[in-house]
């Protein structure tokens, strides 16, 4: 070995580098540091063999342990499902009213329903379930098809005007104008009458003319006083809530050629437990009704 220059004061070898008379000492790394470093290298080698590491054309090398983060997630979900299984089983077997009465189960079902609502329902009904034009607000106390737990549950199961489901809720309002059932004058008069039902400003004379037209054509579904009939899905016309905007032009348009919204039947897409939880969640939003005894 060639003799290296040693620093006189510290006795340490120099690297031979010199700047302005200052020489760099070749101080060895601390042993603990070096061993930690070697340890890291050994660990990295082991890790590359045991775990997915090398990128290939499709995916990466699987590693000896066969670990994958996706499998880990599936396992986590399974664990969560198992943890919830007792409650889910109860939700499945108990009638909706029983679930509502059990405070803990109610909390569980509302939480589960909220999660399912965010995935499946907010696209139309909005994240706060406040709906919009043509999409009912689920927070209020006005229900076209009924607001008891069972009625909400049926609506969820079979949908509204969802032709693929034979049990779907159907309410075909005739196109009174487009199909020539009523004349434009009659439609104008009955629109004025409908406005007057919910206490809006209307032409009193036209409304008076519209009353018999309403009795002949509309009362069968909407009721004699426009109070609506949930069994036909005929909205109440006397209240402050309208599915579509309640100004005169909108009312006329609706009588002329009604828009008829569609809600899918969920029993083909979601399991029964989820639908029950959704029903309980929607019922809990503040407008839920109790069945009339």
């Amino acid at each position, binding site marked *: 070995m060639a003799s290296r220059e040693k620093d006189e004061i510290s006795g340490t070898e120099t690297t031979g580098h010199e700047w302005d008379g200052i020489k760099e000492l070749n101080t060895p790394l601390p042993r603990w540091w070096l061993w930690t470093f070697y340890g890291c290298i050994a660990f990295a080698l082991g890790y590359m063999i045991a775990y997915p590491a090398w990128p290939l054309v499709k995916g990466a090398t699987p590693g000896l342990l066969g670990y994958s983060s996706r499998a880990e997630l599936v396992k986590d979900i399974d664990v969560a499902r198992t943890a919830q299984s007792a409650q889910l089983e109860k939700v499945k077997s108990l009638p909706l009213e029983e679930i*509502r009465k059990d405070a803990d189960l109610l909390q569980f079902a509302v939480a589960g329903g909220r999660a399912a609502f965010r995935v499946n329902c907010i696209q139309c009904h*909005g*994240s*706060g*379930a*406040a709906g919009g034009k043509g999409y009912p*607000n689920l*927070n*209020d*106390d*006005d229900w076209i098809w009924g607001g008891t737990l069972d009625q909400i549950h049926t609506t969820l199961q079979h949908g509204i005007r969802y032709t693929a489901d034979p049990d779907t809720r159907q309410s075909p309002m005739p196109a009174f104008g487009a199909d020539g059932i009523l004349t434009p004058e009659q439609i104008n008069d009955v629109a004025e009458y409908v406005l007057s039902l*919910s*206490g*809006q400003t209307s032409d009193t004379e036209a409304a008076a003319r519209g009353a018999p037209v309403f009795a002949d054509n509309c009362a069968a579904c909407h009721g004699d006083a426009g109070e609506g009939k949930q069994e036909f899905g005929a909205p*109440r016309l006397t*209240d*402050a*809530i309208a599915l579509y905007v*309640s100004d005169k032009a909108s009312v006329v348009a609706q009588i002329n050629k009604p828009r008829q919204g569609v809600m899918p039947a969920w029993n083909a897409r979601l399991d029964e437990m989820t639908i029950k939880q959704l029903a309980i969640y929607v*019922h*809990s*939003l*503040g*407008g*839920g*009704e*109790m069945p009339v005894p």
Partner: protein
Amino acid sequence: MVEIVNTVETIDAVPHNSAALRSLYAARVKIHPKRGSGYFRNLKWLVMLVTLGVYYLTPWLRWDRGAYVPDQAVLVDLAHRRFYFFFIEIWPQEFYYVAGLLIMAGIGLFLVTSTIGRAWCGYTCPQTVWTDLFLVVERWIEGDRNARIKLDAAPWSFNKAWKRVSKNILWLLIAVATGGAWIFYFADAPTLARQFFTFQALAVAYATVALLTATTFVLAGYLREQVCTFMCPWPRIQAAMLDEDSLVVTYNDWRGEPRSRHHKKAQAAGETVGDCVDCNACVAVCPAGIDIRDGQQLECITCALCIDACDSVMEKVGSPKGLISYSTLRTYDAHKAGGLAVIGWRSFLRPRTFVYTAIWMAVGLVMLFSLLHRERLDVSVLNDRNPLYVRLSDGSIRNGFTVKILNMEQRPRSFVLSAEGLAGSTMTMTGGVGEALHEFTVEIEADKLRAIKVYVAVSPLLLGGGEQTPFEFKVVEKATESTPETRSIPAFFHAPPKETTP
């Protein structure tokens, strides 16, 4: 060579940690403190007994709080987020009391340090106390200083091995007891003890015990004075706390120097000699491995064992005690200048100590006052934001609120919840199903929070067209004996803009 100092043996002790002997790169030289005896050693035994007793026994103290809350006197109930200290119960949102206590502890430490120096380090710091305890074990098994030095140097033998093994086992037992006692502060002690020994306790309990066992064992058994010198920030901070009137362990060199091992010989030769006989007793007992005769130094934890050691030597050679003593810089300087100074009460009464005491007491009194007057009922109101309001079929507007009522008393209570300042409003609870009322009675269990969903509905005609109408939720305790607690929380009622109101 004639031994002049007849009764005092000179100890071959080296102050390994004195600045002069300490190389930046050298490995630590083990310190073998000699057993001390005397006034300060006895004081330290007493402090050790009290501090260890408090630490190990506190979790087992009981304090009856009634049927609904735990009866452990001191309990940090992490699972239920409560802190119990005898008659005080603290909820997480009252954590400022703990912050206040920490401030008091800090100021208290300043006060103590500025008056009696590093008393914390020398007497009560856990590092000092447990190191002392471990030293007792070490001395009991391996003997005092000389025997231990000899044992360390001796080659491995059966005798050395069993001594080492039994010492470490005893240390480990103390360490486990120390780590074990810690967890009892966080759960009901008797229950946890049963679970712990039947292996039913939570993994975190075992992990905590393992961690604290390891730190106790390593810090008190092997690292010892290195913790104080290199790891602890407090010695650095204290430099700013000490002033010329703080008590510090001082070698009175104005009296001791020039030191001599051969007093009579030197005196006979006409040389001046000080009182120090250079026996190294002060170095031999020092747990920090320094020589106090080098003056004030960072490594000194002021345990005062050198005072004891020196006093007994001074007694033997017939010189007055106090060659090494608690002294202040001011008295030391006065003596050095040839004057005579005594540390009087005056040295404790100075602006600095007054200020520290005043701040300390102010924080304490403010905390005490607020503790005595704090509310045991808390209410918070959260307005539904999505949707902000809902129009009902009769045209009225409904807002949803989550009202959280905290019953912080250790007994169940019932409260009446009402909305005030919103004319004509009605409230419904439990999902809007049920009767619309003007007030509700809410039962809340002892020491619990209850969140209640409340729907408030009011006709827009009564709102006067405002989009935001201020009102308040009022919660009144239903009490028969005491004055009912009352809380009013301001809230806003949101309504749609005027133009869309029919």
